[in-house]
């Protein structure tokens, strides 16, 4: 070990230290620029700062892409509107500003105390009853609305920039991938997406927060659309809203009925309201499969929902035709959940408790269509 070498070592050490110091300084600057609560900033480590910055830049790119398109749309729209008349023109004069303020003006203008209590966007997010996620086609979650915490226990800062695959159930990855796929045709519905996934959730249903490692899964209904942003770095994202599938807030009105089914979807119980809607008596439905009640063309819809139910425990059927006794059909949608035996408070039971039955709430969406048309044997007396 020559002194020359020693000197060089010290020098390189010194240089490295200086470099690190500069780096940290830049990162601190960066974290200052991020729109985060100041209390959170010192807690962020270096990779997190970069991760959040990347997300921030991406979502900005995406939004500016939107803004461009919207401006173009609005300009086109304005032209057509200008031909339309005074009322519209007057409204248009306000232009972009109006768009921005639209909500404020109507939804509680100048009411500071309301704003303090609940911000404007909180309102939007609360209406959703869920949170918003923006995911790139590669699966990076570039934005999550901060109310995710209410639903999943995980925070926006924790998740943003991470891959969606790290926080969702492995069995659902294929489905997520398919839905993030740009080319996925989705049966000609444009860029619309509608699927269920299970995401890690650290809030127990008693409201307690647990460690991420012992997180449970929560079924989320994800609905949204594909957005392509080509300006600058090309970015393709799927924007969707995630709503926990709890039927608990449903106000059971006259156009819904509840039912219980065995796991193969045969009725084991049905409430009285079904008679008013579909003309079947609850007792005559017992043992009848829902598949016998649906229009054959909607078989696929129900099968998909049933499969979701079996694998994920909850499902939304989507719209299908349910056959009415005596003829005709009605459009309906069923939300269902598997009810399991309440597990004894025995920790470490890796296998799920046996399913007891399926509970369904069926919404009737339409009146009876083609009431004279008999389609199935089950409709006849």
């Amino acid at each position, binding site marked *: 070990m020559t002194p020359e070498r020693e000197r060089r070592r010290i020098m390189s050490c010194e240089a490295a230290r200086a470099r690190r110091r500069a*780096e940290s300084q*830049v990162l601190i600057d960066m974290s200052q620029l991020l*729109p985060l609560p100041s209390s959170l900033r010192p807690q962020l480590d270096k*990779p*997190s700062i*970069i*991760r959040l910055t990347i997300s921030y830049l*991406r979502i900005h*790119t995406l939004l500016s892409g939107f803004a461009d398109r919207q401006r173009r749309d609005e300009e086109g729209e304005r032209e057509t509107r200008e031909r339309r*008349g005074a009322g519209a023109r007057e409204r248009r004069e306000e232009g972009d500003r109006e768009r*921005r303020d*639209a909500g404020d003006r109507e939804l*509680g203008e*100048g009411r500071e105390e309301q704003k303090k209590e609940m911000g404007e966007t909180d*309102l939007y997010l609360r*209406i*959703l*009853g869920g949170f918003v*996620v*923006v995911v790139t086609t590669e699966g990076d979650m570039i934005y999550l609305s901060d109310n995710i915490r209410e*639903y999943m226990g995980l*925070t*926006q*800062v924790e998740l943003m920039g991470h891959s969606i695959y790290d926080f969702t159930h492995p069995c659902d990855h294929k489905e997520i991938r398919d839905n993030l796929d740009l080319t996925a045709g989705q049966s000609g519905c444009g860029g619309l997406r509608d699927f269920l996934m299970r995401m890690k*959730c650290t*809030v127990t*249903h008693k409201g307690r927060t*647990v460690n991420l*490692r012992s997180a*449970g899964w929560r079924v989320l209904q994800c609905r949204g659309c594909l957005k392509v942003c080509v300006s600058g770095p090309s970015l393709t994202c799927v*924007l969707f*809203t995630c709503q926990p599938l*709890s039927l*608990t*807030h449903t*106000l059971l*009105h*006259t*156009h819904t009925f*509840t039912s219980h089914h*065995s*796991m*193969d*979807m*045969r009725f*084991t119980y049905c409430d*009285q309201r079904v008679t008013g809607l579909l003309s079947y008596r*609850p007792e005559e439905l017992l043992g009848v499969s829902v598949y016998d009640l649906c229009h*054959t*063309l909607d078989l696929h819809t129900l099968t998909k929902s*049933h499969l979701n139910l079996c694998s994920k*425990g909850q499902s939304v059927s989507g719209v299908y035709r349910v056959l009415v006794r005596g003829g005709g059909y009605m459009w309906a949608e069923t939300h269902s*959940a598997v009810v*399991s035996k309440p597990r004894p*408070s025995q920790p*470490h039971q890796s296998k799920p408790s046996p399913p*007891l039955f399926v*509970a369904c709430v069926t919404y009737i969406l339409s009146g009876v269509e083609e009431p004279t048309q*008999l389609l199935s044997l089950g409709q*006849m007396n």
Partner: protein
Amino acid sequence: MRRVGLRGAVSMSFALKNNFGSPPKCRSVEHTRGSPGTRSWKFNNFEHICCILPCNFAGPLQLGETNSLPVSRPDVITPHLAGAMPNVITPHKAGAMPIQELSRKRKGDIDNRENGDAEMEEQQSRSEDDDQQVTIKCFREPHSQIEKRRRDKMNILIDELSAMIPSWNPMAKKLDKLTVLRMAVQHLKALKAGASSSFTDFNYKRKPSFLPQDDLKHLVLTAADGFLFVVSCDRGKILFTSESVLKFLNYSRLELIGQSLFDYVHPKDISKVKEQLSASGLYPRERLIDAKTGLQVQDLPVGAVQLCTGARRSFFCRMKHSRTVMKTEDKTIQPSSPKKKESQRYCTVHCTGYMRSWPSTQLDAESDDNESSHLSCLVAVCRVHPNDACQPSREVKVKPTQFVTRFAIDGKFTFVDQRATTVLGYLPQELLGTSCYEYFHQDDLQHLAETHRKVLRSKEKIETSCYKFKTKHGSFVMLQSQWFSFINPWTKEVEFIVSTNRVLGPGHTETEQPSSSKLLDEESKRTILIPGISSGITTMIYAGSIGTQIANELLDSNRVNCSPSSGTSSPFCPPQDRSPMVSSHANTPNDEVTDSDTVSKSGSESASKGATYAGSDTHMDTARSPPGESSQIDLDSMVGPGLGILSNDEAAMAVIMSLLETDANLGDAVDFDNMHWSH
């Protein structure tokens, strides 16, 4: 020796780590930092798992993985590993669990080290002076590896970051880290300056959100792909809608604001919407739900005096879609608008939202009733149902020359598409409950029975070759069908067969009619030629029972596979039921043989078939009830007294309560939590 074995085990845990552990992901502080207490618990647990590992772990997994071991001390690790291998290869199914557990725990450890490696080391050496644990410590992943991974991760992140910076020359050589970071800072500053208004927002200063408010608002509406509206509860007046309503319902916002919502809702849905707008105080059911959910209650404003505030709503209704292009001036632009006016279209929207109250003075300045200071409204986002939008395309899927039918496994029609009537001449009710074999031409019976048999045992769709199907008028129509058996996703049993039938050649029925009637004549002659009418009867009995025979074959084969108890009732009952049906069918061949006046005959034919409905219906029930019944009994025994006994509301409540229990399937998490505390 013991120590050697343990070394093997522990070093293998590293292999496992490499195998299962995903590249470490950065986590935020809350999770990376733990109290010393949890850390030591983790460590103890880890040690525990290591010790049990060799006996229940699936060995072969690792054979190829030895190369990827962290190679800080290959001399130590590999030989021992090789030595440990033979003991270890005990294929054990339960092995998978501890492995995953281990890799997870290990990952957590590594994350910890990123923050306080030294501290942790100290902690360990303090707490463990036992020989074994020292060994474990030696075999922990070397520091250099962790550092390397950390650097790699940083480099990936920096690369990603550099891609996001608008660079003047994207093809330039790779920038160094510090430059990228500096440029990112510059870029951020530029963005901030550009969007100064939103950044200096007073809201932002108070509680910064990651995105400016209106951007987020825009994002929400885009993601929801719907429109927003606020309706007052008392009169259904639309107080606000978002502009996007134009896109979905083709009404401008100004047109709607101030109007009654009920004018835009399908007349039959008005009562439904009214019900939703009414205060939830009237519905104790719903209030209870909110009180119990825990999760839902959290977002209720504390101290809400109004019972209805915060109550969530989720419902479907049909709303008017304006096809016409709004104003009169537009007629010049859109000459086709008068035509469109007639087609009043509704689209199904799903409204989700909640009840909220506003001081009416602010919201409803021009409103005359100021006696109530607060006005409760429904704030909701409406999404046009995606399936609704696709509906036309879905209809197109079945071409006009196609129709869909469904058979029970014995070939009886249980579902007939209305289009069948135009093709076959029968009304659905004439076909339902009868066996499809009654309509097949004799020449095709063999093939179709074969296909039937095949389809019951196959998951694939099976195409029949073209065959003749007797229409109501006695002629035959050429059909080709695609059959598939519907298998219940849960029981994996065939429930019925779905057939998509295609008429071969448009107008085939008309052109074919003379020849087919000729053919029918030939057939009738042939049946007459066969000595004795009885033969004719036997062929018809045969035709009707082919399906049941095939179904019985399947049931028999199922019974062999299933438990004997489930099958005992089914094989004997159906034949008994079937006998009267067969006798009733014995009349029909006579009608056919004479074949003079088709109209009157078909009438009597349908009447005789009507007689069979009852029989076939009961048959279906008996064939199906055994599985249904048994499962129901099981359920009853598990649930307790049948819910049917309870009153309507109680039952509904029971449903909700049970749903609450399933909500989120969070049982695991609770249990884990408890365990943490008990340790």
